[in-house]
């Protein structure tokens, strides 16, 4: 049985349906992420789980027990707020002790567990500091420690890394993964940063305008997006407008206006004539000089419009015959400067017959 079950949750604010018919199962011990653009309803879902808001329709159950009518202070669910919401009049230790005091733990136990938790987030020497004396990353850790110290069944994290700079954010991501593994508390994490979601999560729910578009493990979300929104939202992807010309057990034959015939992996019941998009990740596209021998099934010709040298990889933006842009990514392992393709150079792009995903309209 899932630890947390959301069943057909809907929440309306006036005419706006902020959350539409959301159903989710989150397992114990999972690092689960709600990913989606700003305003898609992520915070609203967290607030309903925490008890600060209630769904207009649908039900939420924790450990099989419906949560409706249970006040936030009575739910074994804690939240790490984006603004941290640390108590300014309490020390770091006082902040972390707060949930333990609320739970009526003994003095000795509180002292021990505050100490343990401070060590867990590497703040042993900051117990007596006040929140205003801490850096952003330290505040973040105190907020995490406070949320975790009483071992809730569920920890909700609403963009907890949003206020940190890029470098610190990366480090905190690593710490977050380690921390979750160590304490084993189930995390429901909210972010609009897709890379962060991919890096941290066991499973991700991609949301759009109050609806869930796809729930999957990061690898599947990335390699097999179910629709254009997911494909476009996660990572970079090339989308080519195509229609199906023929089907075979091992492949799908496609026609792209201006680019000719293409082949991709088969999908269930895509009859000839079905329209859609071929979605192709830049790292699957191999770039070479125009007229190079064909080694892969699919090929198109184009002109290099620009390239971005990123150190480990180079990203080429290539203009195709039909005027569209295509991205190809080349790793720079062992490549000398001479092998780069200059702007304006004619190039051939090739990819395997099963590299792309056909997304039906």
């Amino acid at each position, binding site marked *: 049985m899932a630890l947390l079950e959301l069943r057909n949750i809907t929440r309306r604010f006036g005419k706006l349906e902020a959350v539409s018919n959301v159903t989710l199962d989150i397992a114990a011990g999972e690092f689960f992420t709600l990913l989606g653009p700003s305003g898609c309803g992520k915070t609203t879902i967290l607030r309903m789980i925490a008890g600060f808001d209630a769904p207009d329709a649908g039900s939420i159950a924790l450990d099989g027990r419906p949560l409706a009518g249970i006040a*936030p202070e009575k739910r074994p669910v804690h939240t790490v707020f984006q*603004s941290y919401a*640390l*108590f300014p*009049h309490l020390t770091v230790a006082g902040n972390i002790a707060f949930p333990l005091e*609320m739970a009526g733990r003994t003095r000795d136990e509180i002292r021990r567990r505050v100490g343990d938790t401070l060590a867990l987030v590497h703040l042993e020497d900051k117990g007596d500091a*006040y929140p205003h004396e801490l850096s952003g990353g330290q505040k973040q850790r105190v907020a995490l420690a406070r949320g975790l110290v009483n071992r809730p069944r569920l920890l909700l994290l609403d963009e907890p890394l949003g206020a940190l700079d890029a470098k610190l954010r990366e480090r905190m991501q690593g710490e977050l993964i380690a921390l979750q593994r160590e304490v084993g508390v189930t995390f429901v994490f909210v972010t609009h940063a897709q890379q962060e979601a991919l890096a941290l999560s066991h499973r991700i729910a991609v949301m759009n305008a109050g609806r869930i578009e796809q729930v999957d493990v990061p690898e599947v979300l990335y390699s097999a997006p179910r629709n254009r929104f997911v494909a476009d939202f996660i990572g970079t992807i090339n989308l080519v407008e195509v229609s199906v010309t023929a089907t075979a057990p091992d492949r799908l034959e496609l026609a792209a206006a201006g680019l000719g015939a293409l082949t991709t992996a088969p999908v269930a019941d895509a009859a000839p004539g079905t329209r859609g998009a071929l979605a192709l990740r830049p790292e699957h596209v191999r770039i070479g000089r125009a007229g190079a021998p064909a080694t892969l099934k699919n090929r198109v010709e184009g002109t290099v419009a620009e390239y971005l040298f990123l150190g480990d990889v180079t990203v080429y933006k290539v203009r195709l015959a039909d005027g569209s842009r295509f991205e190809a990514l080349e790793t720079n392992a062992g490549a000398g400067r001479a092998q780069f393709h200059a702007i304006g150079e004619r190039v051939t792009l090739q990819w395997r017959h099963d590299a792309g995903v056909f997304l039906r309209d």
Partner: protein
Amino acid sequence: MRAFFCATEARADKLTRWLVTAPPVLFLVVFFVLPALIMAAASLREPGPFGGLAPLAAQGLTLDAYRFVGEDPIYAWILAKSLLVAGLTTLLCLLLAYPLALLISLSPRRRRDFMVLLVILPFASNFLIRIYAWIMILGPLDLLYRSGAVVLGLVYVHLPFMILPLYTNLEKHDPALLEAAQDLGAGAWTRFRRVTWPLSLPGVLSGSALVFIPVLGMFAVPELLGGTGDILIGNLIKEQFLDNRDWPLGATLSLALTAAVLGVAALSAAAARRRRRP
């Protein structure tokens, strides 16, 4: 070059500090230190035959007024009673003002300004007129000329001075803190006790000072609403200057009052420092 910049910077720094601190210091000297010194000087003189002070050359300095105040316990008793009444007034103001200030701070933003306006509206009419209004209310009810009426009047007059600093403080509280406390298991009362109240202490303190100190010097309210036994130290001082024409005694009493106020202020500052949580 760098040394030059540092030097000018340090000088500019000093100048800024001086410009910032000078006005309040000047204010304190002109309106507090100088009057207190004049009072101290007056307290050491002889009273003049028709009020005022006897010529210094003729009479010289004397500690008569101090001896007089020290020998008659009535003065210490009235000062103690005044402190008690001021404390009681402050406490009652706090008990009434806190829920009101909380209510205003939790109201929708649009309604708050209106409610604050209602709080300060009584100032639009004259203080004495408002006290006479109380006389007209309490008189027929036979509640006039007793200590209860005095405290009632004092609370009524000073309530806005408690509400406003409290409201200013409470209004700034981040609602996310209460949500965090609730999320971490705190019920309504615990949220108040552990979050709202400690964060509002600066407001409680300044409100209390704004009520306590003026009440100590107040003479009009006890005079108009109280009985003969209800005079406070303020009345006593006023009497020495206006009715008894004994300026040195009035000056001595007012110095005692100043000392008492400073003592209470020092005590509360010490208490605030001990539990200071930035």
